[in-house]
């Protein structure tokens, strides 16, 4: 009898997570790199590097971040190859060997994509996963989150990732375009904003996007600063302490207006008799859920429409892939066969 492995994958612009039915869970940075030349190949002793390994050795690599706004970049063969490597790596981590199926003879995957992903994007992803998994179900990321949390009725999911912020109102039906929104204002735009602000304030400091991303992940907040944020960056080669409290606040708060506007707009479209229930059942997931005081800021905004409650997932990193896994496990065999 064929051994089946079900997996849920949250293919993220910044990080990708996988949850397997064998209990394995992993998260990797969505970076793939190939040694840039013969010297790098000799030093690194590997044909391809993935995740943190790739970021750490980026100076020696032809480094790719193959997902843009949560979707495969089109038109670049190298990026397509990179995403295939990333997927093979993720599956390898949960027990499927690279390029083949040794530990399981039937791999069934559910992959979450941004809510507003176009059908062509989904088809593109499907094509790129050929030969890597046996059956593939593509769903919107916030739907996967909602399914995993069993929050299928009168709930709003706000999934703030690196490339996109996805919104979805669950009404007990498979979400349509009317129930969902995607903003491209998300973690990456905070990084870009923070880099710009820090460079303006400290023009002599040598700061990269990787550094500000790390600072954001450690210190992000909105509202009142919980502490003074001091980071270290080289100025003329000398490690120097920089106070970036104001810049961090401004960069993170650049997310607030579009997120609040979209949240209120979607709420306004809910049937009046259910609006209060949805307002009190808003779930914040994804990396954005780690921005300190963001739930409170959203609750403050909800006061203008009668108040509400926003809760943040304890484990925002795996909430998408766990939801995908739940979907994969619940789906009947017959349905999977149709997609294989």
């Amino acid at each position, binding site marked *: 009898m064929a051994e089946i492995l079900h997996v849920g994958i949250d293919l993220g612009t910044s990080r990708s997570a996988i949850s397997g039915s064998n209990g394995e869970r992993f998260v990797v940075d969505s970076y793939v790199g190939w040694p840039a030349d013969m010297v790098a190949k000799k030093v690194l002793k590997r044909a391809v590097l993935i995740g943190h390994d790739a970021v750490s050795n980026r100076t020696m690599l032809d480094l790719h971040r193959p997902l843009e706004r949560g979707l495969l970049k089109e038109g670049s063969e190298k990026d397509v190859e990179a995403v295939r490597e990333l997927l093979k790596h993720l599956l390898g981590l949960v027990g499927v060997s690279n390029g083949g199926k040794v530990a399981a003879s039937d791999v069934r995957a559910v992959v979450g994509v941004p809510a*507003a992903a*176009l*059908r*062509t994007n*989904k*088809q593109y992803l*499907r094509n790129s996963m050929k030969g890597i998994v046996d059956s*593939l*179900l*593509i*769903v919107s990321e916030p*739907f996967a989150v909602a*399914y995993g949390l*069993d929050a*299928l*009725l009168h709930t709003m999911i706000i999934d703030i990732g690196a490339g996109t912020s996805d919104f979805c109102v669950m009404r*007990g*039906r*498979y979400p*349509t*375009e*009317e129930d*969902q*929104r*995607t*903003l491209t204002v998300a973690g990456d735009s905070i990084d870009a904003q923070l880099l710009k602000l820090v460079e303006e304030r400290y023009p002599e400091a040598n700061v990269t996007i990787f550094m500000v991303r790390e600072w954001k992940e450690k210190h992000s907040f909105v509202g009142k600063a919980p502490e003074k944020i001091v980071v270290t960056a080289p100025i003329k080669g000398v490690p120097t302490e920089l106070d970036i409290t104001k810049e961090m606040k401004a960069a993170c708060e650049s997310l607030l207006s579009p997120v609040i506007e979209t949240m209120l707009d979607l709420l306004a479209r809910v049937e009046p008799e259910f609006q209060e229930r949805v307002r009190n059942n808003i779930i914040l997931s994804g990396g954005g859920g780690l921005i300190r005081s963001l739930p409170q800021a959203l609750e403050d905004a909800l006061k203008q429409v009668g108040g509400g409650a926003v809760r943040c997932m304890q484990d925002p990193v795996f909430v998408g892939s766990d939801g995908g896994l739940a*979907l994969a496990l*619940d*789906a*009947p065999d017959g*349905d999977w066969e*149709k*997609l294989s």
Partner: protein
Amino acid sequence: MKGKSDRVKRRLLKQAFADNLETIRGLPPRAIRPGPRTFRLWIRRSPLVLLILTLAGTTYLASNPTAAHDTIAPAKIVITRAARPLPGAPATIDPTPVSAAALQLSVHRVIIDAGHGGTDPGTTTLLQLSEKEVTLDIASRLGKILQKNGFEVVSTRKDDRLVPLRERARIANDSDGDIFVSIHVNSIVKHTDSHGIETYFLGATSDPSLNKLAADENRVSGYSVADLRKLLDRLYADARRGESQRLAGAVQQQLVGNLRNFDAGLENWGVKRAPFVVLVATDMPAILAEIGCMSNDNEVAMLRRAEYRQHIAEALFQGIHAYASSADSQQKKGT
């Protein structure tokens, strides 16, 4: 309670798989999938209906020799057709004699879209001429020529008012139009010496200058970002594109060919693809014609002349007619 949750889950899973199967089959999302209107349109154009109409027309012609005479007499282009009632309007019998050839025409109702209007003047010049005035005037002239030649005309605006692009698309779609022609005037401030004509049809482009042009023309769209995402899905799997391209080619050819008689320096900038919102959101073959270039002083002087604007309208008509004729001949061949 658990039972209810399981039922909801089963339903959601079924819908998720159905959605994936539709993606695999290349179907567009349900929200923008052609509805009953398109189905009716298809039915209307189906060979079976044409056969019935042709038989009816032949019977009519046989009993009305005057009408038969009308169909072969004129040397100039005259297109007549069986009028269709506007949606919602009571069906009426057209008392006009109907030619056998006309019964097979596939283009009956033309939507004319005069670019900009109201608080959105479009391109303006120091010589107190605005794009919105020029487009409205040419649209009005074109409408009259089309009507004179037997086409039905629906205008997205008939006076100087702001009509969001979303509303323009709605008017076109609700009117059950066969083709959509949007009239605009270019302005290329970096190249004031040259002037030319270009016609667009729906499509993605990697040319940043075309994207900027599309962004300028899309400014007063009335669409949210989410709506645009949904609409842009149509860029990739839209069967209208081929027809739109043929219409654009026919119109561009007639514009350049005819207007060069009055302006020898007029350049042919060709048929191009760009993601203009009105082209994406309309259900029928759709084009956007940039009929001139207001950044060129000589052309502005030409556009101020009513006679030249009339020539532009006539050239547009010739292009539409050429497309309609070729569409008919293709239909006759069953292609």
